[in-house]
């Protein structure tokens, strides 16, 4: 952890990574889109609406992935009291919340052609909805407290409690779903993902990860600058005595 010992070194490292991440995004996104929309065949059952899966599933993956990033940053923040880990959670949360919201919206838009209704209380969609509430709670704590340091550590505690409860929630919702199983015609991802459906899925997933790295590093630099500004303003205020 000490490699990011001070913010200046972290910013230098971020500036090295950013061009590469932008490069990967510029390569994977167009190719992924081309595969998803043009090249891959329509599904025999769902027809073309399967193409929504190529952004729905990666967004859901990213929603989970970002929460894991937040949870590990929170663990580092609590165990090593590392200031950068504290703000990593704050930097990642809005991106994760956006991905979760997008997963829900695309899930609903996919449900309409497939099941005829926008919202289906399918086990996965419901747990993504609950994950969205966990994000809201995390971001709300950062807003609620005036002192940044305490807000960060309180939010880290919540993120850790959340990550412990996530599997329990996931299990209980799936269990609940099978209990009240409406005759759902087609399971979301089908028995096995057909080989040529996998291609666009992976390319889109890589593109979204590259996107995450870019915006995450931007937001980390932004949070670091915010604290530097606060310290400078404080020193100006103190200087006047």
């Amino acid at each position, binding site marked *: 952890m000490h490699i990011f010992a001070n913010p200046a070194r972290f910013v230098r490292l971020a500036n090295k990574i950013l061009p590469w991440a932008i490069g990967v995004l510029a390569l994977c996104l167009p190719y992924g889109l081309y595969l998803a929309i043009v090249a891959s065949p329509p599904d025999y059952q769902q027809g073309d609406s399967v193409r929504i899966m190529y952004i729905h599933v990666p967004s859901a993956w990213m929603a989970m992935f970002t929460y894991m990033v937040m949870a590990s940053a929170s663990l580092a923040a609590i165990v090593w009291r590392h200031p950068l880990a504290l703000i990593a959670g704050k930097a990642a949360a809005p991106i994760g919340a956006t991905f979760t919201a997008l997963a829900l919206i*695309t899930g609903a838009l996919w449900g309409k052609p497939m099941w005829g209704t926008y919202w289906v209380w399918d086990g996965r969609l419901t747990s993504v909805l609950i994950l969205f509430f966990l994000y809201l709670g995390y971001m709300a704590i950062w807003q609620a407290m005036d002192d940044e340091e305490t807000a960060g550590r309180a939010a880290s505690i919540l993120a850790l409690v959340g990550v412990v409860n996530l599997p329990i929630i996931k299990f209980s919702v799936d269990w609940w779903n099978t209990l009240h199983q409406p005759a759902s015609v087609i399971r979301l991802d089908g028995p096995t993902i057909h080989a040529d459906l996998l291609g666009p899925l992976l390319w889109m997933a890589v593109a979204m990860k590259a996107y995450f790295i870019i915006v995450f590093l*931007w937001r980390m630099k932004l949070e670091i600058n915010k604290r530097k500004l606060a310290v400078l303003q404080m020193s100006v205020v103190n200087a006047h005595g």
Partner: protein
Amino acid sequence: MADFFAMGGHGTFIWLSYGIVFLALIIIAIMSFIELRSLEAKLNKLKRNNKRSSKTTDTPENNSTGKV
């Protein structure tokens, strides 16, 4: 070309979902980038003022807030 957009009758849903996803992702990216740039500008301006005010008040030795 027309059937390409029709997408076997599901066109609206497919283009809507792609549209919403990219719109949201672009908005988040741009908002973060703009805020980053504005903070950097503010930071530099404040540092310049600090340097100018500290030069005029005390002896012009190089105080540490200059280099960061």
